[in-house]
């Protein structure tokens, strides 16, 4: 199967770990398409997402000479097994590409004509999205089977960004969904949908997300193998048209979600009364909706 990886940056840890994991399983990509790491837009977004301190720490870990320990070079400890390579660690998709001999191409935008042309040249059966832009039809239509995304929540309940956090706040079980991307936000056909049982009351939100990303990589690998063997098929989302997208969560709400996580309140959902009131007065209400791949 011809697989292409789409990354938000060559240094994307999730993209790097996924690529390495697939290669370990024998699915060596025919190419990886990444966005640039050092453009102003990406840097400012990362600083906004992680804060200045964490962003600097990440940059130092990725770019400093390889003197630090492996643990210090990896932001998400649950990806260590995928990122370990001999005595070292894959710090970028380019490291993986050098080992497994496939090309890495940087483009200014994943929807750009250059990116589309490159994708067509690789003629993939399947692409895997690990972060970046909202993809347009020109890109979505290139791979024969489609583009896979691991969404860090159960679909269709939670679409959009900050999806683990919204799951906690809305009382929806934590979960991961592997789906094919379409022009909507997390509205594409579902391949795998699993509840996530790995959370515990010692987790922080960041820790929970790290665990879910690692689990998502394993599920993606399962989905790729399943598609290759023809043992899994996709199911269209029932309420695709419902506008049920969540957006990045404000830290004040994240604090509430954190309390729910750390106090072990993971099994109780919203009451039926809440939902019926919501749905009656709010024409845009989903069951509790939202989006985002490994970024979700």
């Amino acid at each position, binding site marked *: 199967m011809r697989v292409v990886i789409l990354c938000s940056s060559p240094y994307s840890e999730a993209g790097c770990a996924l690529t390495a994991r697939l290669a370990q399983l024998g699915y060596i990509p025919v190419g990886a398409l990444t966005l640039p790491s050092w453009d102003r837009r990406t840097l400012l977004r990362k600083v906004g997402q992680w804060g200045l301190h964490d962003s600097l720490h990440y940059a130092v870990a990725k770019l400093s000479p390889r003197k630090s320990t492996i643990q210090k070079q990896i932001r998400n400890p649950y990806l260590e097994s995928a990122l370990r390579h001999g005595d070292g660690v894959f710090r970028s998709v380019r490291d993986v590409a050098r080992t497994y001999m496939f090309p890495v191409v940087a483009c200014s935008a994943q929807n750009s004509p250059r990116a589309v042309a490159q994708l067509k040249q690789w003629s993939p059966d399947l692409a895997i999205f690990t972060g970046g832009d909202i993809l347009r039809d020109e890109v979505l239509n290139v791979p024969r089977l489609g583009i896979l995304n691991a969404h860090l929540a159960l679909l269709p309940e939670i679409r959009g960004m900050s999806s683990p956090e919204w799951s906690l706040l809305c009382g929806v079980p934590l979960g991961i969904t592997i789906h094919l991307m379409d022009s909507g936000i997390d509205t594409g056909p579902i391949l795998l949908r699993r509840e996530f049982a790995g959370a515990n009351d010692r987790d922080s939100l960041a820790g929970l997300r790290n665990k879910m990303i690692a689990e998502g990589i394993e599920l993606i690998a399962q989905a790729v193998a399943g598609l290759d063997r023809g043992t899994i098929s996709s199911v269209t989302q029932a309420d695709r048209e419902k506008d049920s997208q969540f*957006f990045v*969560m404000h830290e*004040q*709400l994240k604090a509430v979600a954190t309390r729910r996580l750390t*106090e072990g309140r993971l099994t*109780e959902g919203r009451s039926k009364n809440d939902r019926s009131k919501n749905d009656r*007065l709010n024409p845009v209400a989903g069951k509790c909706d939202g989006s985002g791949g490994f970024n979700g």
Partner: protein
Amino acid sequence: MRADERSQTQMNSPESSSSRNFMTTRTVRALTEAAGLLRAPQRIVPLFSKLASDGLRTTFEHRHLYSYVATTIPTADALRSAVNWILDAQRPGGGIAAYYSFLTGYSDSYPEVTGYIIPTLFDFGRLTGDLVARHAAYLATDWLLSLQMPSGAFPGGLHGSDTGPGNNAQPSVFNTGQILQGLVRAHTETRNAKILKSAVAAGDWLAAIQQADGSWTGPAAYQGTAHTYYSMVSWALAQLATESGHARYAAAADRNIDWVLAQVQPSGWIDGINLRGHPAYLHFIAYVIQGMLECGILRQRDEAIQAAAKAAWVLLRKFETHKRLLGTYEPDFRGGQRFACLTGNAQMSCAWLRLFEVTGDLRYLNAALKMNEMLKQLLPAKGRRGVVGGVAGSYPIWGAYQPMRFISWGCKFLADALMLEQRLTRKFEAEFEAKFEVKPETKSEASGCA
């Protein structure tokens, strides 16, 4: 009436029935205001400082999906700052200035805004125990009572202008409605029969001149035409119905809401702002939404709440995606002018917060928290009286809506939004804790599941 006053009046709740050559008006206003700067050169440095800071900020700021997700300025501090701006703008007679201009300083008192700032001052007094704010609300109420016309109406325009309170006073539907909000709240707080009598007279006048279809047109309506943003008037009437127990005001409010609902488009856009010579500023779009939502809540009209929610959701998506709302919109929320109408932003925050309260949909609360954060970051923390704590008409300050001015109704809506945020976040956190209260036996189950 000075040209700048007339223009200001028209921009907020205008009630002149004659059509104007707006280009000429704008030119006259610009010249008049520039002359004002020559009369008070001490404002030159603050003006250029603001121009420079907004220029730098708009050049280098980068908004993305993660913008405004962190609290950088405590809400209580920003709230105190905005209310202090309002208190500073109160004139000795009790009226509150419409704006502070870098070019002309404080304006005359503005009855309409003074009226609907009264609930804000009472809310702040209740929240913080601040007696100064309550006293300011009493003063404002007394001043407004002195302006009421024999018909029960209140005049449009700034106090002292030739169409404002005075010999040539022209009654105004919109201003009467906005003032009615203040009177109703003042009566709730004081139980003063004189205030209720005044409110009832205003309500009677509004009901009497209402058209059969529920709209208001004629000489007391701006440009003589019906406007959907007069849903704010029906909100005031619904409040009066609750306060007085008289069904006729509720019926008038319902009639107007029916008319507004007839203007709702499939996109969620609500036609009928009808401001000839002006674009549809976000301020007016938000007025339509707020008026319909609040009236819908009071009158238990689900279809009004749903229509308001649909329009509010369109704007929420735009804000969450781009972390900005345009200063104006074309019909069906198509493109518009790129400056920010800060007042409209604060109003949308109020609408989202109320929709969260009504529907329980956390996405509204989430967006409002971010919007409030953006607005807090744009409040001047330092500067002269009239500037510090003020909400500019536009961001950048030279934008098309109330350029070079800090406006009292902007501070009012920001204060409302911040107080709503405080109340609803506390309530949500308490309810969330109660809903997911961990009993000893369920805690072990939950941990087991995890």
